[in-house]
């Protein structure tokens, strides 16, 4: 043991002296070179460390960030190498996995691109408050604990493939926009509640965050960047890259993008502008809905709950009732909401996002979804099965191609109407209008991302996915995502009243779907 420690110390000493000699050499040569602080190299053999030193020197040349960021980025590589060294991986293999080519010149070119916001994203900067921001979160649960050093490298290599994500929100004279930002994008350990506002005000701030906790990788996105589909593509690519760095290379299909591939123009396009819809423009203004009961918590969400259940059984139960999975869960939500409310008059209106890609095939990673509202009078809500025909009818009608195109047309008309008004005049008006419409017309949201698939090589190493909607002013919001045979229904709670989720659990249980319930602790005011 002592011998080993001594050997390690000797190696470190030789590294340090090597670095010193290197410095003297470059002084003698008269080359002006910025030196990084001495880094202890991770491998035991001298020859291996020399290879690493050369690798780091090459790396240094490829990064033109500020000195602090440059050092941090190089330290990320060293940390990953240290991890590889502990696993017994050979230096050649480690360096191959971390090949600096994977940086793709991202960190060696100045940022000079920008992206105007897509028409759906334009509202999000206006709807922000100090304690609220439209954030959603996608998580992948692996069958093993996360290695933070490798996840950091996976993000470093992945982010360049998603240029519209590597951005900071800025103010233009007429609209906000996304300004490309070259920086070290970081992964963080998860500490607080999901979907907390992201601080995006400072120069070069990240507009998304990557978190890890035990076996979970989560990405929280400001909605301005992307919608669920784009966000899922990023998460899947990140997970695939993470596994590649751990030695499992997968094919680039099932929504995983090649991290070193070229960005297709369609991936960053504002598809709303490509829809030439005819007919009426409608869909925005609706009357206010009755909200579920309970006082809004000061910290929102105050709890997140996941109902994990057998996907086949869920589909089978929904099918038996003549419903789609979305319609079935909506019927449960209406009844659970009724039980969580003291009101007996008025209407519940549940927002259902609609992926426009199913009507207008597109590979855009930006926002490309609209929404519809499923509205039922409280007086008619008693048993879920009785609601299903009406929910199905409304879904077919309101989420149709025609209805969605009308809404896109309304969005485009509205955007066009105010495009020449300077931002400082537009902002207060839009904020006020959003205050009147916004969350008030809905009592909840159900977003179903559908079935997620991964390349078979890595699919077996992933346990499940979940999808969490950020907190608005509705008391509860639901989201569903299915991976393998696990469907995860997530509930974001903004009130401590547990009636809604308890009713939901009871209804699922009654239908024979015995969900495993996971979640966060409740934050009481």
């Amino acid at each position, binding site marked *: 043991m002592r011998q080993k420690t001594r050997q390690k110390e000797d190696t470190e000493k030789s590294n340090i002296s090597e670095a010193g000699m290197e410095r003297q050499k470059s002084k003698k040569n008269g080359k002006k070179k910025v030196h990084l602080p001495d880094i202890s190299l991770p491998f035991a053999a001298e020859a291996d460390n020399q290879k690493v030193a050369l690798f780091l020197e090459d790396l240094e040349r490829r990064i033109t960030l*500020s000195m602090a960021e440059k050092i941090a980025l190089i330290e990320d590589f060293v940390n990953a190498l240290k991890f590889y060294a502990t696993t017994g991986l050979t230096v050649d293999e480690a360096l191959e996995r971390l090949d600096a080519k994977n940086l793709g010149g991202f960190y060696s070119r100045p940022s*000079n691109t*920008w992206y*105007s916001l897509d028409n759906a994203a334009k509202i999000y*900067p206006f709807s*922000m*408050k*100090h*304690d609220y921001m439209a954030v959603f979160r996608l998580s992948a649960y692996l069958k093993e604990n996360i290695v933070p050093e490798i996840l950091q490298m996976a993000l470093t290599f992945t982010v360049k493939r998603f240029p519209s994500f590597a951005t*900071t*929100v*800025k*103010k*233009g*004279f*007429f*609209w*906000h*926009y996304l*300004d490309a*930002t070259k920086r070290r994008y970081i992964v963080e350990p*998860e*500490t*607080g*509640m*999901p979907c907390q506002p992201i601080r*995006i*005000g*400072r*120069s*070069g701030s990240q507009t998304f965050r990557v978190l890890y*906790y*035990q076996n*979970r990788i989560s990405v929280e996105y400001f909605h301005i960047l992307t919608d669920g589909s784009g966000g899922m593509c990023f998460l899947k690519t990140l997970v695939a890259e993470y596994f590649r760095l751990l030695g499992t290379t997968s094919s680039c299909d099932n929504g995983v993008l090649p991290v070193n591939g070229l960005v297709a123009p369609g991936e960053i396009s*504002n598809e709303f*502008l490509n829809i030439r819809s005819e007919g009426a423009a409608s869909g925005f203004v609706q009357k206010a809905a009755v909200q579920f009961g309970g006082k809004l918590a*000061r*910290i929102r969400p105050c709890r*997140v*709950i*996941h109902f994990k259940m057998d996907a086949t059984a869920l589909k089978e139960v929904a099918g038996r009732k003549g419903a789609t999975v979305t319609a079935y869960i909506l019927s449960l939500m209406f009844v659970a909401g009724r039980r969580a409310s003291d009101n007996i008059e008025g209407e519940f209106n549940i927002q259902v996002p609609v992926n426009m890609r199913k009507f207008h095939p597109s590979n855009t990673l930006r926002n490309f979804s609209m929404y519809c509202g499923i509205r039922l009078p409280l007086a008619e809500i008693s048993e879920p099965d009785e609601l299903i025909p009406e929910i199905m009818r409304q879904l077919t009608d309101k989420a149709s191609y025609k209805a969605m195109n009308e809404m896109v047309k309304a969005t485009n008309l509205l955007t066009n109407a105010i*495009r*020449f008004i300077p931002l400082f005049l537009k902002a207060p008006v839009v904020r006020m209008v959003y205050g009147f419409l916004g969350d008030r017309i809905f009592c909840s949201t159900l977003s179903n991302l559908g079935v997620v698939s991964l390349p078979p090589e890595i699919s077996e190493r992933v346990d499940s996915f979940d999808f969490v909607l950020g907190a608005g002013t509705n008391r509860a919001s639901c989201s569903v995502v299915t991976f393998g045979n696990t469907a995860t229904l997530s509930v974001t709670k903004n009130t401590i009243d547990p009636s809604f*989720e*308890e009713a939901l*659990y009871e209804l699922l249980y009654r239908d024979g779907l015995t969900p*495993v*319930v*996971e*979640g*966060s*602790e409740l*934050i009481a*005011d």
Partner: protein
Amino acid sequence: MQINITYPKPPKKKSHRSIMINIVKDLFLLSALLCVTINIWAGGKAWSIIVLWSLYMIWTLFIHPDMIEYNRISQFTKVIVQSCIMLVLIDVFITSGWASNVVSIVCFGALIAVCLLLYTDFERQRHNLLPMILLSALSFVLSVVLMIISEGNVPWQVPVTFVLSLAVLIVCFKTMGGNIKSELKKLFHTI
């Protein structure tokens, strides 16, 4: 219903910001209303307008600051523009005849300061040019207007502001490098 906790224990710190904002908002609204009422009741000069503007300044600078583009250049130019408006309001409603001189001095001082803010943290601040462009454009317009209405009797600070605003505009374009067209499109895009 048994919930397995799969999230880290959240920190106990509570955000009091929203509560504070709500309380201060009520206080501000009350003060504003009182000032206007007293001013109307007591008559005389419209000092309540100055109070209203001061409250607005405190609100936007300290209580409810910008959530997007909160950087040294944007905040500095915001303070300057709002202060200049304040000076003009005092000139118009309380004592007149001095604002044009003072505002132009404030403007040229601000133009120099904003350049210092840019060059002392160039790598980061070069992405925050819009407030700088707007400040120099406003100063330019102001100095031109003052030169026209002064009818030959132009105080020294006005041409200095004129020249400095042009110089700062040139600095901005230089900072944009070879991408002036694209940068301007970015800052003034309408789609």
